[in-house]
């Protein structure tokens, strides 16, 4: 039992470390945790196999990179189905590559969908032609994103630097 808890703690620590910086090597993670590199390798492989780690992606400030994309958050109201509830319709919406994320939310609407496209026109059309007409979808509201201030825990403005002196005792 105790071993199990320890294993769980190690898994969680690895996830915390990777969430902050996914580019660290197994050796570096092992050193931070004071365990063997092979153990880290094993745990990460297991986390991938179980589908807990889904991928490693950079957080990109597109505005700074000069990449023009248009994104919109779509509030979607749906009629849940017998047996599958919201899952079937949510999965259906998820399959479009234009859709970047789909979440079931509480409140006035049911699904919060992030859609990405090259132009406003493209995004609006996608919603009008692919999402709105779905049988279970009762209503949609589109919010175009104007500016991103923070993404995935990363603040986009100037990095905050401490102002410490080089020597203090």
């Amino acid at each position, binding site marked *: 039992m105790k071993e199990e808890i320890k294993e769980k703690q190690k898994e969680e620590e690895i996830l915390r470390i990777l969430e902050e*910086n996914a580019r660290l090597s197994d050796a570096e993670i092992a*050193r*931070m945790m*004071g365990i063997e590199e092979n153990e880290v390798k094993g745990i990460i492989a297991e986390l991938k196999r179980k589908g807990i780690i889904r991928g490693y992606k950079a957080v990109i400030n597109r505005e700074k990179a000069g990449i023009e994309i248009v994104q919109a958050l779509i509030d979607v109201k749906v009629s849940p189905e017998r047996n599958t509830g919201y899952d079937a319709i949510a999965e259906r919406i998820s399959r479009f590559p234009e859709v970047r994320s789909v979440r079931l939310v509480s409140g006035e609407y049911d699904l919060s969908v992030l859609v990405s496209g090259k132009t406003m026109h493209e995004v609006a059309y996608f919603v009008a032609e692919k999402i709105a007409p779905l049988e279970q979808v009762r209503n949609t509201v589109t919010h175009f994103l104007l500016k991103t201030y923070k993404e995935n825990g990363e603040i986009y403005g100037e990095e905050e630097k401490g102002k*410490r002196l*080089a*020597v*203090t*005792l």
Partner: protein
Amino acid sequence: MSRMSDRIAEKVRRIKGSGIREFFDIAQRMEGAISLGVGEPDFVTPWSIREACIFSLEKGYTSYTSNWGLLELREALSDKIYKETGVYYEPEGELLLTTGVSEASDLALRAIINPGEEVILHEPSYVSYKPCTAFAGGTPVCVPTSIEDEFKVQAEQIEEKITERTKAIILSYPNNPTGATLGRKELEEIADVVNEHDLLVISDEVYGRLTYEGTHTCFASLNGMKERTILLNGFSKAYAMTGWRLGYAAGNKELLEAMMKIHQYVMMCAPITAQMAAIEALKCDGEVERMVSEYNRRRRVMVDELNNLGLECFEPKGAFYAFPSIHLTGLTSAEFAKRLLFEEKVVVIPGSVFGACGEGFVRCAYAVSQYELKEALKRIERFLERLK
């Protein structure tokens, strides 16, 4: 007119200025240097704490507070200390908010020392205990600790130094600069000595929250020690609030009353903005935990790598310092630090700064980003290669 230097009080004149101030000045100005010489967190104060302070300013909290500090803060602090250590201090009379732990330790010394009385302190240790004892008219009596004992002061070492003039012992664990900690058993042995010889203890536990192996034991929590201990702690290290200057002392009512007497005339009160922020800080356990786990990761990287490089380093279990031996280089710690700065632009602090027995060691703070830590260790490796 007589020379101005002759007019300076003797007890101040007797305290020698640090011989490496010049080195520090150069380090302070060196462009592109990575500093492992810093005695404070690299984190900026958590936002919710800063935000609470900003809000308090907007609401007009800009006045003095009670000399003891805001009652609301003392009450929250009393709860917090009780939860963490099991020791209860009455918010009224047993808890005093001060301008940093520095002020608290000065007050403690001045409140208890008569001219010529002795204060036992272990070295290497934080640089201010010795001069502050002297400023207070006392005589510091140093106990050297060694790497063989993992820089833990031994009860019998303390006992050997006790005379009829001994008034108090200063304990500071987790320790700056060594990162050493004392376990419950070791503390109990010291408590026995304290009891037997009827002494007081000033226990500076400002790094207590930064304990990585086992848990920190508050000296006042030991049997009979609450009455004999002036517990010092503050917000600087655990909450990354060094510049706010907020610490506190907790202990016996009469002792605290005596400290308060000095405090009310020289400081009046700790700054209200810092106190308002501290009320919020006490609710920020999650942030503290996050910082502590990050220090722990860096600690392992630093200690592991220093040992790999041949700089023998015992495992520091608290604070955010490693204290490796540089014996193999044949350099003094001041030479080592100076050359490392000029040749590789890495700042470390010579161990001799913290007492004669710190010679042969350097203090390396791991309160730096993983990136800087890696880069600094790379530079140290290059430096050592060249020395071979």
